[in-house]
Structures are given as C-alpha cells and as structure tokens.
C-alpha cells in the first residue's frame, strides 16, 4: 500500500496535535490538581433522612479552613436551597439525588456533577471571589426542571487572610 508523502506528513502532524492535547490534559490533572468526581460511595435514595451525612444537609466546618457542604437534589429543588461558605477555604460538596437524575452546576466554576440516585457525588473547590453563585440543575428531571436552582453565597473570609495561590487545590 502506497501512502503519499503529504499524507504521511498530515497524519504525523495530526498525531503530534493529539499527543499535545493529551499531554496538556495530563498536566492539568496531575500538575495542577484539577480533578473529576470519582467513586465516593453508594447510598439508598429512599432512606436519606437516616443516612449520614445526608440526614443533615448543609454546611459544616470539618477542619480549620475546610468545609463540607451536603446537598440533596429532589424534584424540583435543592436542599438546602442556599448555602453560605467563606472565600478562600476548601469546600467539599457532597451531594446525591433522592429521586431521579439531577445536575449540579455552579455558575462560573468547574463544579459540575451529575446527581444519580444510589451514588454519592463529591468534588472540592476553593472560591476566591466573594459573591452570589447560581446553582442549577442541568439534567432534565421532569416538567419542572427549569425551576430547579439554588444559590451559593461566598462571603469574604472573616480573617481576611486569604492569599492568592493555587486556584484549585488538591482534593
């Protein structure tokens, strides 16, 4: 089989581009510690009110500068609908669904997770800028889907000691 020299060049250039893309992704993940949600346990969606941590949805400080936010998606609202967290802290969102598939997307951040009944979604983020962030369900969950939203209010840290550093710390 003859392969034309231009064709070899084209395919080689294509391979270089693809390898370049993959290297950039590897760097983002391992070098800059930007991660996807992974395996974080299972849960029975019919029994959330008796299953920690979903028996107490909301914000809690687990260590100095480290917070957990527990959220439940159910048609067509988030519980709690509004949370307050400090800027500059590591916030770990732990979420699941009580009924059908939902989405969990916080505007202007890379926090973007599916909420699947039976599975626990978990990801960590640090908000550098205080302000109000829209939380929306971005997976179809029935005819009221477009009414399902919440709010994350990021408050300036009390100590005022936040330093600018890595935007996305290791989770």
């Amino acid at each position, binding site marked *: 089989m003859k392969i034309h020299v231009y064709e070899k060049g084209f395919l080689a250039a294509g391979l270089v581009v693809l390898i370049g893309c993959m290297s950039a992704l590897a760097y983002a993940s391992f070098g800059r510690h930007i991660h996807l949600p992974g395996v974080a346990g*299972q849960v029975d969606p019919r029994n959330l009110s008796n299953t920690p941590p979903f028996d107490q949805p909301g914000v809690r400080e687990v260590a100095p500068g480290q917070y957990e936010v527990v959220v439940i998606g159910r048609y067509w609202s988030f519980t709690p609908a509004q949370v307050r967290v400090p800027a500059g802290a590591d916030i770990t969102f732990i979420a699941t669904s009580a009924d059908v598939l939902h989405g969990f997307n916080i505007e202007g951040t890379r926090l*973007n997770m599916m909420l699947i009944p039976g599975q626990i979604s978990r990801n960590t983020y640090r908000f550098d800028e205080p302000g109000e962030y829209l939380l929306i369900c971005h997976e179809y969950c029935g005819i009221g889907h477009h009414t399902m939203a919440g709010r994350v209010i990021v408050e300036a840290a009390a100590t005022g000691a936040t330093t600018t550093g890595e935007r996305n710390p290791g989770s």
Partner: protein
Amino acid sequence: MAALTPIVADPSGYQLPVMQRRILRYTIYIGYLALTAGVFHGLANALGYAGVSILGWFPALQNYYQGLTAHGVANVLIFTFSFSNAFLPLMTARALSRPLSSGLLWASFAALVLGNVLAIYAVVSNQASVLFTSYAPLQAHWSYYLGLALVVVSTWLALANMLVMVRGWRRDHPGQRTPLLAYMSLASYLMWLLASVPIAVEFLVFLLPWSLGLRETVDPLLTRTLFWFTGHAIVYAWLLPAYISWYALIPRQVGGAMISDSYTRIVFILFLLLSIPTGFHHQYTDPGISTGMKAAHGFLTFGVFFPSLATAFSVIAALEIGGRRRGGRGLLGWFWRLPWGDPSVAAQLLAMLTFVLGGATGLVNASYTMNQVIHNTTWVPGHFHMTVGTAVALTLMGIAYWLIPFLTERQLWSRKLALASSWIYTIGVLVFARGMISGGLEGMPRRTFMAEATYSSPDWVLPGIITGVGGSMMFVGVMLFFIVVGMTVIAGRRTGAPVDIPVSGTLSPPARSGWEPSLDRLGLWVIVAIVLILIAYAPFFLSYEPNAVSPGFRLF
C-alpha cells in the same frame, strides 16, 4: 490520469428488482419525514433560548419536554437509522450486483414501522417525555422502550441482509477481494451491531420489564452506563453512512477519484475497533465511576479522532483531483471550481466544512477535566448540531438530491431551492452553534425551557438570541428541503432511462496478495473489536456493585 479501479463488481450498472426498490424508497421516506417532523420542536427549542415560547402553536403538545423528546427521537434515531437501513443495503447490492433478500427486507421494514408506531404513540400521548437518552428512573410507557428496541432490531435485520449478500458473493467469487463499496457498508453496520448490544440489554433486560411492572427497581448508574456504552459509538453509526458518500460517491460527483482502496478499508477498520470503547467520556462528571476509567476512555476518544483526520486528508485529496480537472489552479483555486451548482455536492461540501468545527468542539468535550466547564451546557448541543446535525444531516439531505430521483425515476424538482436550502441551513447552524457555544461557556444549561426558567443570567441573553436566530434559519432550510423532496416525489418530471448511483473508482487498487487481503476478514476484526471493548469496560463491570434502588418516576 491512470485508469481508476472500480469499487463495485460491475461498473456498468445494476438495478434492483422493482419491489425491493420500492421498500427501500418507503424506508427512506420514513427517515426524511422524521427529519422534517422533528425540526418543528427544534425551532421551539431554539426560540426558547431566545426567551420566546411558541408552544401554543402546537396544540397537541402538552409540555416542552414532550416536544424535546420528539425532537431527539425523530432526528437522531428515526431519521438516521431509517436512512441507513435503506442506504447501506442499497450500496451493498449495487457493489455486488446482487438482489437483496426480500424476506429480510420486508422484516426490517416491518420492524421499523412497528417500532415507529409504538414509539410515536408513547411520545404523542405524553407517556414517554424522558428525552431520547431515556435516563432511568424517569419511566416511560412500555411501548416507548419496545418501539425503540424494534427500531434497533430493524437495523440488525438490515445488517443480516447485507451479510447474506456478501457471503453469497464471496462463495461465488473465491479468492477475490470484496468490492470496496460493499465492504464499507458492511463494516459500518457491523460496528453498529457491536455498539447496539448494550442499549438492547438496557432496554430489554432492565427498562422494558421495569415499565411493565415485572421489575420493581433499576440501577440508574448501571442503565445510564449501558446507554453511553452504545451512546458514543452510535454517533459513528450515524456518521459512517455519510463517510461512505464522502469517500465513494462524492469523488465521482465532482469528477475526482478515491485515493486508495486499502487506506479506506483501514480507516473503516479503525472505526470498527475504536468507536465503542470510549463511552465514559460522556460520564466524566458522573459519580460511581473511577477517574482511572474515565481517563482511559478519554485517551481512547482521542484515538478515534485519528481515523477522522485520515478521512479529512483522503476526502480533500479526492476533491482536489476533481477541482483541478475542472480547471482549478493554485493552492486553493481548485476548491472554487468544484461543482457548487450541483445541490447534492454543495450540501455535502458545506456539511464537510461545518464538520471541521464540529470535530474541534468535540475534542473539547473529550478533554477530561475541561469537560467540567461545558458538561450539560448548551455547548454540547452547539457541538453536535455541527456533527450529527450538519455533517450527517446535511450530507443525508445532499444524498437525497440524487437518491430520491434515483428511487422515483423523477428529476429533482428545483435545483435552486435545493441549493438555497443547504446554504440557509449551513449559515443557520453556524449562527446557532455560535450562540449555543458561547452560552455554554457561560453555563447556560442544555435541555432546559429557558423561556420559563425561574433563574437567568445576563451572560445568556445575547447567546440565547443568536441561538434563536440561527435555529430559525435551520428550520427554514429543512422546510425548503422537504418541499423540494416532496415536490420531486409528486411532481418531478419523469426520467425515461434508469440512472445509476454515482460510484467512484480508486487510484491505487486493492492488492491481491500480501497482507492486504486480510483487511477483508471482517469477522476477525470484529473479534479484535470485542477484545478491545472488554478491556475498556470489564474493569468497571467487574468491580461495580449494582445498586438497584429506583422505582419509576413519571414527572411529566
């Protein structure tokens, strides 16, 4: 130029029996009708992002998501597979100069019609407003799952028909290479056969019994994973028939030539091998799947980009030969000399150009952590309206401009209107995608009735308006297409003599000895593909603990 090597057994022509041609014609009609029916709610979706609700114009419609379900089912399932069910067996029959099996042809057609009737009943009666992805635990009426399963069965029967033909031809022609056009057609649906097994399991083992009350609960992550096990390869099942036109037919239509027989076969084998073990890149943001599995599928997704790069070179080279023979000069002069006045060619050239942007945005989707920026935002429909929505849909529209005259023995009704349709559609989709993609980068959610959403963002206003404008143009483009095809069927001038399918030839012929004949052993390549699929999916299925916790919900 050297003489071209035919890619069919008999270049002088072949006509199918009249009855078989008629069934293929009706199958094709189902596809183009589904395209036309589906875009009505496409218009409603696009305008919804512009803040305009036109649902009141659709009196039969009970809610937005019922229409969105119809849009997805009609445009990416019924349209594409009805077309392929007719097109691929037709190409195989032409390549081998053999008739189809009438029994299998009828069976495939009957399964497609019955599947359509069941699915349409469920969707129209608002008992299946679950969107075409059918994610459990939203539960549809059993007729929806059974109907779509029958559509899949119809594709298997079409494949069986091609297998019977190819086996018969090989038996009669021992030692000969399988004609390339038949090879490409068969490889396309063999890939789809492997790809369709998980969705068949999802529907027949889990969702159908669950909707009938025979199963109380299902596992939403497991069924979703089965869906995406099929769900990425399905886009290649839509794309490969378009590639067959680009590789094998368009060169003839522009006066060019296919480059290489073996190279084309290798590209189709790569699609057979690499299309399927990539599904987790649709589930990057899912819980319950390890980041290692997600990364592995991410790398494989970049791998399947490679045969599309190879296709770009081959197809453009074939076009360049045509353009230069028509007097084109210089680096790009050949491009303007292509027969842009031929509506079938113009539609497919525009489809190819748009596909460049579709492919590039697809790489962003596949880009692992970067996916978190755009997952489930309007970026994604912005992307796929340039791939399946243009590279495939507009190519299939372009094919209609010779295929409908071929099947009806009537001339195309209006070349000018056909040309206008393609240009309006293409400009429309580029505007539409610009709106959806920029909105998606600002987090505008897909599959959401924005006209009545209780939240909004100032960043979504302009992208939404652009989306509405572009979507309206796309709608006009498809309506013009429908008028052209409809009028051709009803009022096209009858052509006296039967025409032939525009089949090209290759510059470098298939080798009769050495390693290249082993490319024809598709059974062997199917086994290699199965091994790759097992490597890519076994770690998940072996380690996953099923969690069947979900009864059905009907929230529509």
